[in-house]
């Protein structure tokens, strides 16, 4: 009875959805509004106007920069939400000395599962190459697919792999306590910083100078943004992992 009810409900919901979707403009047709309206300008002028060979990056950072600023804020919100729910009574003391003491105590406890020497060796061997690739993805985001989000995810994954293999005592030097909150918020901080610089140059918040003379400044602003997004994303991954591991 209940199953029949659920099935009927699903069919009833699916019908209007399918009718609506069926009437959408056909996929891949070059004459549909998706291709003829704002995208047309992005594709024709985007490279010159927005200053990125990769049009997607041009849209993300330049035309719709505020959206991307909002998205990095969503990631930061997820981190804050995770920390507000995960941190427990037992640890996280205040002050550097207490923090170190607690970390030392945590190191003594043999909680870590043993890692196979093969895995350990391979991760350590590949680590510099992974890091290099992450930097490449971040720096080259305005030419080829990629950018801060993707590069940051690679960096974060590398941090997690290293922590599993080497233990948190080795990797935590990568995220000193006083630098942690700065790294976690790096993405939005760079957006606001670059936004204000852009505002000073163009009169609009998050504006990028379009003059040929300021071409280099524009490239540099985009690079800083990508780096900030990458660092912030990696720090969010790393913090959430460390927090969950500590519980």
């Amino acid at each position, binding site marked *: 009875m209940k199953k029949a009810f659920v099935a009927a409900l699903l069919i009833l919901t699916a019908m209007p959805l399918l009718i609506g*979707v069926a009437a*959408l403009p056909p996929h891949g047709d070059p004459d549909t509004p998706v291709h003829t309206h*704002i995208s047309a300008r992005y594709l024709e002028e985007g490279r010159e106007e927005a200053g990125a060979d990769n049009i997607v990056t041009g849209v993300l950072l330049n035309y719709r920069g505020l959206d991307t600023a909002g998205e990095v804020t969503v990631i*930061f*919100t997820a981190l804050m*939400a995770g920390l507000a*729910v995960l941190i427990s009574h037992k640890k996280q003391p205040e002050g550097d000395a207490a923090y170190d003491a607690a970390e030392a105590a945590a190191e003594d406890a043999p909680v870590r599962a043993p890692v196979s020497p093969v895995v350990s060796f391979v991760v350590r061997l590949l680590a510099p190459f992974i890091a290099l690739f992450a930097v490449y993805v971040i720096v080259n985001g305005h030419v080829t697919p990629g950018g801060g989000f993707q590069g940051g995810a690679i960096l974060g994954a590398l941090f997690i792999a290293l922590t599993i293999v080497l233990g948190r005592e080795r990797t935590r030097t990568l995220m000193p306590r006083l630098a942690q909150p700065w790294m*976690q918020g790096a993405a939005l901080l760079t957006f606001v910083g670059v936004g204000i610089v852009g505002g000073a140059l163009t009169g609009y918040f998050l504006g990028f100078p379009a003059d040929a003379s300021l071409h280099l400044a524009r490239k540099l602003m985009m690079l800083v943004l990508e780096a900030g997004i990458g660092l912030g994303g990696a720090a969010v991954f790393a913090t959430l992992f460390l927090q969950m591991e500590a519980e």
Partner: protein
Amino acid sequence: MAAWPHWLPLVVLAPLLGAVFTPVVSLRSRHVAPWWALAVMSATSVAALFLVLRVASEGPFSYLPGGWQPPYGIELRFDEFSAVISVICLIGWLAVLYSLRYTEWLREVPKQRIPYYYALLLLNLGGMIGFVVTGDLFNLFVFLEILSLSAYALVAFSGEHIAEMAAFKYLLMGAISSLLVLFSVGIIFGITGSLNMADVATRIGQLDSAAPAALALAMLAIGFMVKAAVFPVHIWLPDAHAIAPSPISAVLSGLVVKVGIIGLIRVYQIYYAAGVLDLHTLNQVLVWLGAISIVMGAFFAIFQDDIKLMLAYSTISNVGYIVMGLGLSTNFSVIGGSVHVFNHALIKATLFLAAGALIYRTGYRTLTDLRGIGRSMPLTCIAISIGAISIVGIPPTAGFLCKWYIALGAFEADQPFFGFALIFGALFIFIYYIRMVNAFYFQAPVHPEILEVAEAPLSMLAPTLLLASLCLIMGILGRIPLAFIEPAAARLLAPLGG
């Protein structure tokens, strides 16, 4: 000062940036966090004040981040409905002040979490401000995610044993509604090739097939109705709002559900102007759901003994009033409904903050346990009584004029039945608030020690009393917001030829 163009991006980014800095400033001592949040909200309020002054003098205006002309870039658009940021800033500021003592008192919560609480609160307020000032559909969704995500976590923060469950229920419903909104934004982009609201409104009107536009409309309406907790998608609300820490309940009930309403208004702005669909059916559905919400919310509230649960149900019934006002789509009802967005925020914040003060001092949260509290906490109970009178809609309080306008709208729209439903709902509401006032002042205490408790500390009492006095002031000066919102309502309904 008010003409400086950059107030608009500033008012959105100040709380978000403030949230990013909250863990930084709390590195040395977590006690800095509330003062930092207070400073951030003060700065935001100044920006909001200038924006509201500007919209009052020159009407709606835009800001173009990056300098791209719409529809190529994002447009921030400030109209009279966006003036709700004044209430967001006010209640946000007071909620931060109130949290100063309240969060320290939550025994279940590890103290190290507290800075993240303030960061989440700032993110939530910033997300709401961004949501109401943006003129771009995808940007709307981004801010919707910021405010929803932070709201889920804030519900879970209280540490009470069903908090996680309540937050999870809220998260499930909220995630579905966000998905519906995102899917509709995708469909709208698919049929118009644009994301700017004004541009979408003109382009939707020129389409051959109305089916995708209708589907997007339906999903947007359902998505925002979940956020606004309209019957029958209200089921997440009572637990979430009752379990959250009291200042958060005030923010959630006063402000966050209103985001759904503002979202509905934005959808109406697009579709009325496009003129491609006959919105009569949707309006009729909204009016009916509004009426059911009013009666049902009030009915369930009568049977609650838990004071915060009762207030949570009363939110459902008040959202019903607003939705009904929008659905009736007459000049009077839309003005009444939109002003009730402001006024209900003030009233419900008063009630939740006062209820929080009672719980803070006594540790009890049911009407039975709280009997006789009026004798030991007179000021807080006066605030509750003022809030109660306002929410019933007795003149001269803030609740009266809006409900009066919505009722007038029902008669104007030739649907007097709904006018009676509204008055019937008000009677129900009257019953349960009488129950509350009766318990506080006239019944013998169950726990004798309740007569010994002191009045709430100043950082909690002052926000409560300020809001309570605003409930009275907004009732006496009720014509000002009505006149303020009138041009926006007229513009919204203009395409109907009314």
